[in-house]
């Protein structure tokens, strides 16, 4: 279940790829919509952790244009906005497809809803 909430936390980590490496671009995404319980407190609490532009752009790649370019000032009390955010973050699931780094073009596969972020030995940055 790659949802946009998880995707918003993922950046390319290939050795030396450290700029323009976020967000990963969806490719050949198979999308499923699954309804889930709405929790406004969660959304308000998670909001500050989000990279907003990345979220809006990624949702648009998946065909959802419900989020505004800039979040409303009253984001924490605007229920219409929070409902849209709920749907985008938690109800859009990418089941199969790929995520491609905008910088180095590395392809991360998504299989059965689980992204694989493992790299081959020579691509790993030093720990």
């Amino acid at each position, binding site marked *: *279940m*790659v*949802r946009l*909430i*998880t995707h*918003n*936390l*993922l*950046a*390319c*980590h290939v050795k030396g790829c450290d700029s323009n*490496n*976020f967000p990963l671009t969806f490719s050949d995404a198979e999308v499923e919509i699954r309804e*889930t*319980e*709405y*929790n406004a*407190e*969660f959304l308000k*609490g*998670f909001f500050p*952790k989000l*990279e907003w532009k990345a979220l809006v752009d990624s949702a648009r790649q998946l065909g959802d244009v419900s989020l505004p370019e800039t979040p409303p000032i009253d984001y924490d009390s605007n229920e219409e906005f929070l409902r849209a955010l709920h749907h985008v973050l*938690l109800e859009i699931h990418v089941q199969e497809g790929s995520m491609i780094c905008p910088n180095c073009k590395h392809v*991360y596969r998504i299989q*059965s*809803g*689980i*992204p*694989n*972020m*493992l*790299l081959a030995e020579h691509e*790993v940055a030093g*720990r």
Partner: protein
Amino acid sequence: MIPTPDLSHLTKEDYKHVYEPAEDTFILLDALEQDADYLKSLNPRLCLEIGSGSGCVLSFLGAVLGSTSALYLGTDINIRAAQATVRTGLQNKVSTSALVTSLYEGLEQRIKHQVDVLVFNPPYVPTLEGEASVAQDGRDIAGAWAGGTDGMAITDQLLKNVGGMLSPRGVFYLVAVKQNDPEGICVRMRRTQGLDGEVILKRRAGGEFLHVLRFRRSE
């Protein structure tokens, strides 16, 4: 009392490749349950378990905090374990998410000072030097326990970055055994990460002396 997550969907075949919850898992559940009121008071929104395996702990955390109250994200280097993490979430009505990765690779850039609850039940068993990294490369069940010379080969890779991952009120739970030197870990974490650590639960189980350590920022 919070019940242990339902794992009836996992089979013997799954447990050939995915670590089956055992005493080390259960002491971690007990520690989280003991801290339930404290954890709820933090209003955590991002909960991350490294090496989430069967998904038992992450689902339990969801039961403690509320299934829709946080993002419950697990990582595992073993794809079957990542799948089990998601299945166990579904079975227990907690929407757990999983990634196949080593430790937190791919997340590092975006989770700086964002993780509210971090959990790691690492491969802590002392083994021959080098066995830990071979086990990780195998991406199977041995990676769930083989820990290198002092059982700390994999744990140390995470510990050096915990301070940078935790949010201001963030908390980190770690399982360790006596051979890992829990007191020494606390001293090192204080010095290198600025985190206060303490042993919050310990018990003997079989041949192991299990400890659960909790770390958070100094008051």
